[in-house]
């Protein structure tokens, strides 16, 4: 019996149980399996347990890859008929008109502009702030202060998007108005601060970007803090022993060590900002004329446009138009995340 199990059963055994049992009884499979062999034949049963485990892990890894590929494929298949029926240039047209299913004309130019502008602006705010917080928490603050502070930052990630949206439009937008007005009056010659396509200076990409910055702060800070706190002691001691001040230790040891993690964390934040839906939908006002590449424009991002139209997804062709936009967003976030991973060199898995 034991002989047979170890000699030939391993491959059918786990495979039979695996799909049937599913994840619910996973525990019993791993618990009961190695135990009987373990008493009589230590090493071969460990080999078997390892094989089962390896199969489970590589199987689930494969499953994720297949799922992602399937999503991409789904989007593509659904989008193609609409793209064929499109009367406008998909990449350069600023309009997104799907009311008449027989006469579609949609393009992503403005969606791309608003999405990138709001996300990059959010990143431009979140990057220095999270760098400062991470340095403070890991290098300056005593543990007593750092713990609760870090906890509060992490808590920001637990606030639902809808709350950020409400806060953004009700509290932040009026609060930012004086700053926005000042920027436009004094730096209006610069395209980012030029007058936009909205009659007012609230509910702009500017407001949305600040909301997004707060929303991505937890993830960028958490990753950055983590890598900074892992700076090897002996790197820091090298600087200290040369008579480096605390800031010089940071510059010589902490930043060089943590830089790739910091960039990776920021990219993860960017990925999050690109896909944020409901907060953006609430905060950034719709605009009738095309975008001017100004932070004081309004408009839709990929995600907010799709969400705003979700109630009308009854006819396949108009729906396909939104799916095509979704596909672009999918690719965009995918690329950003891939960059994050490459930069991190496997140091981050958040």
């Amino acid at each position, binding site marked *: 019996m034991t002989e047979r199990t170890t000699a030939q059963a391993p491959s059918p055994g786990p495979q039979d149980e695996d799909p049937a049992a599913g994840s619910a009884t996973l525990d019993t499979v791993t618990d009961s399996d190695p135990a009987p062999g373990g008493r009589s034949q230590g090493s071969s049963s460990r080999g078997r347990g390892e094989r089962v485990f390896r199969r489970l892990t590589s199987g689930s890894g494969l499953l994720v890859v297949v799922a992602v590929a399937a999503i991409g494929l789904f989007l593509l298949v659904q989008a193609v008929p609409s793209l064929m029926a499109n009367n406008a240039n998909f990449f350069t047209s600023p309009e997104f008109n799907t009311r008449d299913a027989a006469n579609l004309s949609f393009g992503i130019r403005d969606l791309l502009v608003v999405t990138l502008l709001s996300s990059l602006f959010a990143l431009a705010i979140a990057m220095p702030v999270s760098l400062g917080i991470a340095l403070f928490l890991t290098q300056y603050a005593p*543990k007593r202060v750092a713990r609760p502070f870090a906890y509060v930052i992490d808590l920001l990630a637990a606030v639902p998007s809808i709350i950020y949206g409400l806060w953004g439009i009700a509290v932040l937008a009026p609060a930012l108005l004086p700053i926005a007005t000042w920027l436009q009056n004094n730096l209006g010659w610069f395209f980012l601060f030029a007058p936009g396509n909205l009659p007012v200076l609230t509910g702009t990409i500017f407001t949305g970007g600040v909301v997004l910055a707060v929303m991505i702060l937890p993830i960028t800070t958490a990753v950055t803090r983590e890598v900074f706190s892992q700076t090897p002691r002996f*790197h820091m001691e*090298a600087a200290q*022993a*040369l*008579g480096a001040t605390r800031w010089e230790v940071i510059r010589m040891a902490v930043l060089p060590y943590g830089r790739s993690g910091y960039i990776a964390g920021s990219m993860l934040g960017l990925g999050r900002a690109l896909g944020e839906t409901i907060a953006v939908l609430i905060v950034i006002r719709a605009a009738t004329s095309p975008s001017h590449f100004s932070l004081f424009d309004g408009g839709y991002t990929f995600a907010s446009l799709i969400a705003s139209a979700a109630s009308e997804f009854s006819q396949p062709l108009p729906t396909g138009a939104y799916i095509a936009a979704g596909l672009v967003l999918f690719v965009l976030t995918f690329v950003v995340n891939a960059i994050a991973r490459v930069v991190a060199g496997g140091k981050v898995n958040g």
Partner: protein
Amino acid sequence: MAKRLDLKAVDIYYGDFHAVQDVNLSVAPRSVTSFIGPSGCGKSTVLRTLNRMHEEIPGARVDGEVLLDGEDIYDRGSDAVAVRRTIGMVFQRPNPFPTMSIRDNVVAGLKLQGVHDKKKLDEVCEASLRGANLWKEVSGRLDKPGGGLSGGQQQRLCIARAIAVAPDVLLMDEPCSALDPISTLAIEDLIADLKKEYTIVIVTHNMQQAARVSDQTAFFNLEATGKPGKLVEIDDTSTIFSNPTEQATEDYISGRFG
């Protein structure tokens, strides 16, 4: 410029833990003193109090006097950063800044002191690398990162970095423990050279090394785990190894112990 070191009634703590008790010793300028003793007796701890690295550990503190040419480095007016600029340290594990070029590694301390004159930095870089016996091996690749050198080369790079600022005292904590015999000999030769200009204190577990490189040897011991470490005996190296006063010292160096 080499200076003398005197420790008077030094007690060292990690929080509530009394790590080392009542150390009194003197180190003459331009001499080599080695610290020997069983693991955990506090050699590194004492060494790290000599350049105020000890206080970087939360809760750590030092009582007593550590005098550098008669001035207490723990005096109120004295600044840890300034102390470390004049008392260099080489660690057990080679720790060059891995992404910095070899040249920048060597002159890192000088740059911290505000020297930015390119010509001066290059001069010091070459002189220090020659001093650390590394110049021949790296002169062609000074712009390559310091992390790309072998372990022995990295350790000599660290020595070059430490001597580039012309410290008053050079502290070394088991500088050869990660190195092969040839690199070890290279560093021992180097210590013999450096002795002409610097005051050197070295921690080592290698009795032969202590006997070979040092003028004076200090034996530290621990009565029991949890008790503070103590300086048992300090004397000329030849005396310690041939005719020590304390039985514990004799037991340790003859291998009957710890």
